[in-house]
């Protein structure tokens, strides 16, 4: 912690000061430039992502019109190298993404919000200190592990109990497990928002004779609603971009079907194509960037909405 103070007693004070000052001044500027560069790397990353996605996707759309991409109802990109012989309806992959996201959200949004309310309003300090990190562990488990779990445990259990006709690969089990993975994301952002609600609002509720549940659901949650919405949107964004769970347990069949059947999401398609040997320059290689661009734009919009909501509740309190 000590500041270095090396002084040569034989030199006069003014000499020392001037020389030191110039060296220090130079070092100050050099460090500043270096740190600025560090911060700008992140901007460079975004530029890189946008550049790569747009460049390759532009080549794809040069051969397959965006109208075809948006309106065709089959995805048969793997069947032919000739763009006129195959269909590129992104809606097929987007359907699987939408279904898995919806299932994940049906699990994660209520459970995450419930956990946030319990942790912030009900749990004792001691219990909270254990529960919160334990819940965070769910977000730290690698997605490949969840994928394995969905494939080898959840699907067989579902098959033995409620859904005898469920496929070995299916979007339903993948979505359920994905939902469990997203619980901590929803819970921690919601909890931050609930925590920021001023104590006075709660006490006002109690003074009017409200019970604890009434204060939590009718005063605290509405007051924290923009942060809670942000947590929901972040959860949705996480589900849309999730890759390994759906790639392992969801199947690799591009089709519009029921969640009990195998389907390929946008992310799983990218994994499948890049996992095989697909030479650069082929139409196949270009499709993954067109799909990636769609995915990037979807998550970008969701993230910006969440960012806006988070800022809003920060401004209010």
């Amino acid at each position, binding site marked *: *912690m000590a*500041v270095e103070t090396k002084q040569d007693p034989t030199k006069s004070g003014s000499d020392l000061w001037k020389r030191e000052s110039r060296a*220090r001044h130079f*070092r*100050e500027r050099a*460090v*500043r430039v*270096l*740190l*600025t560069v560090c*911060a700008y*790397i*992140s*901007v460079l*990353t*975004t530029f*890189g*992502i946008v550049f*790569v996605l747009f460049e390759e996707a532009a080549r794809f759309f040069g051969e397959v019109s965006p109208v075809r991409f948006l309106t065709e109802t089959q995805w048969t990109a793997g069947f032919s190298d000739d763009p006129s012989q195959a269909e590129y309806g992104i809606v097929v992959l987007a359907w699987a993404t939408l279904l898995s996201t919806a299932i994940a959200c049906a699990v994660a949004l*209520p*459970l995450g919000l419930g*956990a946030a*309310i319990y*942790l912030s309003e*009900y749990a004792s300090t001691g219990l909270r200190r254990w529960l919160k990190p*334990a*819940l965070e*562990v*769910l977000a*730290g*488990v*690698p997605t*490949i*592990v*969840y*994928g*394995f779990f969905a*494939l*080898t*445990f959840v699907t067989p259990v579902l098959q033995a109990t409620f859904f005898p006709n469920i496929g070995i690969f299916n979007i339903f089990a993948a979505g359920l497990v994905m939902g*469990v993975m997203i*619980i901590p994301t929803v819970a921690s952002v919601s909890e931050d928002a609930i925590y920021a609600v001023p104590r006075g609002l709660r006490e006002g509720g109690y003074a009017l004779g409200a*019970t604890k549940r*009434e204060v939590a659901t009718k005063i605290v949650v509405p007051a924290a609603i923009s942060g809670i919405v942000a947590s929901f949107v*972040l959860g949705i964004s996480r589900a849309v971009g*999730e*890759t390994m769970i759906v*790639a*392992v347990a969801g199947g690799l069949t591009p089709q519009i079907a029921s969640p009990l059947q195998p389907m390929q999401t946008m*992310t799983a398609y*990218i*994994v499948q194509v*890049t*996992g095989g040997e697909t030479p*650069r320059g082929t139409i196949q290689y270009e499709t993954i*960037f067109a799909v*990636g661009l769609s*995915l990037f734009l979807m998550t970008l919009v969701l*993230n910006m909405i969440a*960012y806006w909501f988070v800022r809003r509740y920060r401004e209010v309190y």
Partner: protein
Amino acid sequence: MSQSGTEVVRPREPGTEKDFKTSTGTRHVLDKIFTAIIFVATVIGLVVLAVLLIDIARRGLPALNWGFLTGLGSADAEDAGLLPPLVGSLMLLVIVVVVAVPLGIGAAVYLEEYASDNWLNRIIEINISNLAGVPSIIYGLLGLGVFVYVLGFGKSILSGGLILSLLILPVIIIATRESVRAVPNSVREGAYALGATQWETIRHHVLPMALPGALTGSILALSRAIGETAPLIAIGAVPYMTFVPTGLGSDITAIPIQIYNWVSQPGDEFQAIAAAGIVVLMAVLLAANAGAIWLRNRFQRRN
């Protein structure tokens, strides 16, 4: 808030004692039910986590032995080992530590200590929070387009390590910024009063105080990098390796990728070694997280 001034507030007919009692009775029952529901909501995830861990241990532990840990890759489940992916993960980790941790801490210090509140720095901030939400597979496409082809690093450990570095950079920046912000201003002012320059103040006072928090965040980010699969597959990882990777130019192999490739194979033997691989991966992550918690506790005790 309604315009109470324009409304005529009529006092309600006083309820009978019976009415009042029933109302509070139901409300309190509802309260109990609500408490039970949100408690279940909180622990249900933990129950699933417990089931997951037990199930994986049950499947994986029988296949886990010394031969598995030190064996090389093979197309045969019986002979397949985890040594090349273990070494590959370690090499990726070294690259990420060397690249992402200094860059992340540097960027965080710039944003907290140097950056003025102008539109450019606000853009950087929004950009970082947005990058934290970009799906990892998109980073894989960035790596494929830029590192593998444009810069010509090929499908190598170097490309993989760099893309994982970019992936966790936002996480490190966000964690470090929080701990730099937590350093009280009086510390900086004290240093300035003694004639220290801005960098001297940061180097000798702000950074040492913020370091434990920054390191905790970095370790958590690194454990995310260890578990990442999708971006490495996107760059082009090999199904299995019959030799140990030797340098930055080696083919990409890592524990999660090896698990993915085993899971993709038909047959119970492959599922068993996949589970064994998961046990190893989880053990590594557990150790990393325990380290992070230890650091945090040490830090909290000192303050």
